[in-house]
């Protein structure tokens, strides 16, 4: 049971991992600092339980990562949660159009941020059920 966190901002990544740890959800958190690395990990490594995907990423944009995941026969059912600073509607619409399973805006406030990440983690790691094909 692992999480793939795709996040270029090291502080945001640290905060996200810290929030997940608070809820004891991080047996294994994999961190990719850009889209290309994320795709490499997904291609070669074991299938994560969920992907937390930032949008504004170096090299390969979050939307492209999402698109390639959905185009990949093996990965197309993998739950992808967009976790980003943007609350612009075009982003939200596009994310869903490309097959995102969820869209979460990172709150600026620390308490709200911790709670939001924790809630999402609990939901996707513990409550949500995935098809057998994706599980391993």
């Amino acid at each position, binding site marked *: 049971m692992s999480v793939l966190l795709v996040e270029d901002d090291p502080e945001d990544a640290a*905060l996200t991992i810290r929030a997940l740890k608070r809820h004891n959800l991080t047996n294994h958190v994999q961190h990719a600092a850009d889209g290309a690395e994320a795709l490499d990990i997904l291609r070669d490594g074991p299938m994560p339980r969920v992907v937390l995907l930032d949008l*504004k990423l170096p090299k390969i944009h979050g939307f492209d990562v999402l698109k390639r995941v959905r185009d990949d026969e093996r990965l197309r059912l993998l739950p992808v949660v967009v976790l980003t600073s943007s609350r*612009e*509607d075009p982003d939200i619409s596009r994310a869903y159009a490309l097959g995102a399973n969820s869209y979460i805006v990172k*709150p600026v406030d*620390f308490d709200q941020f911790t709670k939001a990440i924790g809630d999402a983690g609990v939901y996707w790691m513990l409550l949500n059920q995935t098809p057998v094909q994706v599980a391993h």
Partner: protein
Amino acid sequence: MNSSEPPEPPVPSAASGIAPDLAWRRLSIGIKLPIGVALLLTLASATLSAAAYWHVRQLAFELASERLKTAATQLEAVIGPALRQRVAALQRVSLNPKVVEYVTESSEERQDEITSILERLPPGNGRSGIAVLDATGHPMLVTGALTVDELALNPPNTPRDGAIDTLRRSAKDEDLFYDLVIPIENGGRLGGRILERRWLTLSAPGLNLLTGLIGPEARLIIGNRDGSVWTDFHQTRGTLPSAAPQTLIRYPSADGRAFVARGVNVRDSPLMLAASTPIGPVLSPADRFLLRALWVTTAIVIVGALAGWLFSRRVTSPLRQLTAAAERIASPDGHVREQRHGDEVVRLDSSFAQMVARVDDSHRQLQLLVDDLEVRVKARTAELEAANHELEAFSYSVSHDLRAPIRAISAFSNILIEDHGAELSQDARHCVDIVIKRAKHMGQLIDDLLMFSRLSRQPITRQTVSMTALCSAIIAELRSVDPARIVDISIGDMPDAYAEPALLRQVMTNLLQNALKYTRPQSAAHVEVGCYMQGGEQVYYVRDNGVGFDMQYADRLFGVFQRLHREEDFEGTGVGLAIVHRIVTRHVGRVWADAAVNAGATFFFTLAPAETGVMEAA
């Protein structure tokens, strides 16, 4: 002015003045129409009058013909029998044995006896004489006006049939005469002849009969049936058609006047009798008719021309006005082109053509302007789109990149207190608290700014919104944030609004939020929401009894980041009213405020009414 006149085509008569057709064309309809009407009426009346005149004339001739025939018949009824009685009397004389004996014996002593026999005959009218001729035609005895010399001068004929010879003209003078020739039989052989020569004179009774029948100027014509010799007792020469007795004929009188005549043949003779009368009296009814017709025609023509003139005046007046209007449009600067080539219609046509040309020209210029404008609009739109695009990119960057550092500042400050709180002094903790608070405020500022920026780009779809329901919902929401607070909020009767629901909700939320915020110091806070009509507009308002503000700063109220209160007293970013202003403006409405320091504030706004297809303000 002359330079604007079109070059005249070379007209041959141009040098000598105006060509007739050109002159006619230049005439006003006010003159042309009456003339035309008069000509037409004249033509029609003349034709009708001529036809009627000919008919009346024909009738007059027929009437005259009948009357002349009647007169001639009656004359023949008088003269014919008299002639035949005379012939019979002479025949009786020719059968007298004494006369027969005298002719055969030629005894001198019987001469007196024969003369007395002849003298016993009733006297004829006018000049006449009787002669007894022997078988060879030599006169044996002459009486009356007849002389041997006369017989030598005008020897007697033998009539072709009967006793009456044709009318003849004397070889000596113009006297006309005819002979009655009766053969004297002697045992089946011609013994001699009795000849009576009668010169023509018109008897008073005959003339009286004629004038009584026809008129004072009536004449009697006696002549040969073939018309060779005739007289009307005024003239003895001239041509008289031989068919005279049967139909009405015209002949010129010696005095140059025209006469009409009709007659009948005298039975048992080569003679004819006719009655004649001058044409003048015959045609006088027709002439009177013609005169009357001329008067009527003239009257009709004058009335028609007058009517035409009046009508044309009614027509030409609007035509002139039309022309003037067309000229004004054709040359708004007053440089009216000279119009001398034709009547009102031609002038109107010309002015109209100029006007059309001018309008076309204007249209072309307008089209050029429109094209130019379109190009400019396109360029401007492209610029705006580019600017909008940049703004979007900017917002996007702000949204992504500005939040992250602030989140980091806020978060790590929190972590500092959480993980290392024990190591921090009281002052250090206070500092970190301020960092956290300000970072949070910064986050709020960014969120508000992004929202404000989004308002400019978001499309507006207006629909009917229940203001009462909307306000109730917002107030319930706001109350739930601070349930302990006691505020008296009244919602008045409000008509439905026509707006984008989410944006209207934002407006009311911001206004009500402000009202609650700035009444916080009041012990008894009152907030009132309502609407009233003013100048046909619905004016919505939110009134509170809060701290209010100084109206001299009212113009800064709706600016972004503009605040009239200190952050320590009332939290806020200074974007709320700017958002309200932007939303109301995009709904083509107005927003304004009325307030006084510590006496509450009222915010008013209007929205464009539903029926106006409002173009949304950018």
